[in-house]
């Protein structure tokens, strides 16, 4: 009876539900998350805290670092935005229209998830360098893609591509056609229907996909180092700077910037989950 508190806690969670296995599955999950995730990440935060605030602030606010934030956040935002627009378009086309090789195209969407980022980087630079398959045509007009900020945006667009498509697609598939018909019957033009009925219905999915693509782009390293010029203040992304700091034995600086990235990611996810919570609470039965 001395162990009343914990045992009654376990009992109460079981008594609500006849489905077995809560204790063991929850236990294993927590254990796994704790060891693989919480302890290491906690370690990083603790390590960051071993330095003084001044040191920390200097590391994360150096102009070169700030410039890299600007590029990383900016290019990730642009990449995610491109993915928002084209991801929506692609999922629309895949769900609504018929065309040859549709299944193949659909399957290929996952490629950026599957292709190693280093390979992607090498392939992209092969394409977009001024001697590359595509880059040469831009080169004629004096436009450089690889080794510029455009190159960074392209790499980040590439790796984030599946997120928007794969979050929007199922929602679009489930969207009742009756909603559109109701709108049309009420006199709305097709464009109005898309703007006022379809887009709002897709909005939570779009935002989720957008945030995921953005968060993923923010941390991307492998594909970007190949295609960006890595010029400090210009084309140097934050993860590269973290690596560079570490290579110079400056782990504290690296950890400080890493912590900033970590917090940014955390905020992103809070926003995503918050949005989802908000929209399900509000709009679904």
């Amino acid at each position, binding site marked *: 009876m001395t162990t009343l508190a914990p045992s009654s806690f376990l009992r109460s969670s079981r008594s609500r539900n006849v489905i077995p296995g809560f204790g063991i599955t929850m236990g294993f999950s927590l254990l796994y998350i704790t060891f693989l995730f919480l302890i290491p990440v906690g370690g990083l935060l603790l390590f960051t805290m071993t330095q003084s605030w001044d040191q920390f602030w200097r590391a994360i606010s150096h102009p070169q670092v700030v410039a890299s934030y600007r590029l990383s956040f900016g290019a990730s935002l642009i990449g995610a935005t491109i993915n928002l627009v084209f991801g929506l378009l692609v999922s629309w086309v895949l769900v609504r229209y018929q065309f040859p090789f549709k299944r193949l195209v659909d399957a290929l969407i996952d490629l950026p998830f599957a292709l190693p980022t280093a390979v992607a980087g090498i392939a992209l630079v092969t394409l977009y360098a001024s001697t590359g398959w595509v880059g040469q045509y831009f080169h004629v007009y004096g436009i450089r893609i690889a*080794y510029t900020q455009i190159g960074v945006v392209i790499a980040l667009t590439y790796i984030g591509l599946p997120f928007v498509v794969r979050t929007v697609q199922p929602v679009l598939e489930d969207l009742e056609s009756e909603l559109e018909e109701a709108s049309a019957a009420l006199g709305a033009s097709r464009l109005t229907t898309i703007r006022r009925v379809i887009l709002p219905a897709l909005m939570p999915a779009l935002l989720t996909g957008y945030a995921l693509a953005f968060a993923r782009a923010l941390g991307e390293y492998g594909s970007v180092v190949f295609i960006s010029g890595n010029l400090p203040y210009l084309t140097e992304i934050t993860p590269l700077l973290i690596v560079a700091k570490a290579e*110079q034995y400056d782990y504290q600086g690296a950890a400080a910037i890493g912590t900033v990235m970590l917090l940014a990611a955390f905020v992103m996810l809070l926003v995503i989950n918050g949005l989802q919570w908000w929209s399900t609470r509000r709009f679904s039965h």
Partner: protein
Amino acid sequence: QTVNLLNVSYDPTRELYREYNEWFAQQWRDEHGQSVNIRQSHGGSGSQARSVIDGLDADVVTLALAYDVDALRQRADLIPADWQERLPGNSSPYTSTIVLLVRAGNPKNIQDWDDLVRDDVQVITPNPKTSGGARWNYLAAWGYALEEYGSEEAAFEFVEKVFANVPVLDPAARGATNTFVQRGIGDVFISWENEAFLAVEQLGRGQFEIVVPSVSILAEPPVTVVDANVDRKGTRAVAEAYLEGLYTDDAQRLAGKHFYRPSNPDIAAEFSDQFPDVNFFGIDDVFGGWDKAQNDHFNDGGHFDTILENIARNR
């Protein structure tokens, strides 16, 4: 039984050590009847040193510059303070220098360091912060300007102008070579001499030319046994033999074959056709040794950081 040896090296030595490892393994087996399996790790010099410091189990390191090797002592106490005295020639069995690689026919007519600051010239070099080779590049240019224009300020200004012409700053030497050679970016590539030869001889026959500048730096990539590791693993004997082997005639010839300048003057003479005469200066003379150079130029807040800031401001 087999002895395992891990050689942690920097980027451009891949081809050299692939061949030397075979030679040494053969040699060792012949002499000791023991087979030795040499494993290689390559990467940017600084990043490789960092790995060893963090616990990569290297028996020997063969890095791009003494500063990176010395870090093993300063940061992890893996080697004794006198490590550089243990082998001849400051522990550098081969040397190299920094040259300029240009495209065939030298379309931009680049003859010396001065041409690198011209507005119409794009320069490729890796990032001195992460690449050992790039630090040699930087110091070579600095040394030239110091000699030519006479003041630290002028040298600073000169190097700033060079880096203002850099469109891509790869993290390591090999990436930079790829950028210049494969992607066709830039008019001139400041390069290890051996990398330049490799490009001319193997990557694009007839597509590139080497321009030897009027003065350049004598680059001494040092080697050492990692004492803490070999003692723990009991591989000291073979590790030391491995490094000493680098000074044998056969190995010196191999170095020459892979476009490193042999430290043995006799063997070097055999390759005199291959290596042009260069007006060398040494790091100790001009920069007061690696520690000072690193501290003045490459550490956070050093000249290089200021240069980057200035470039960014002027852009």
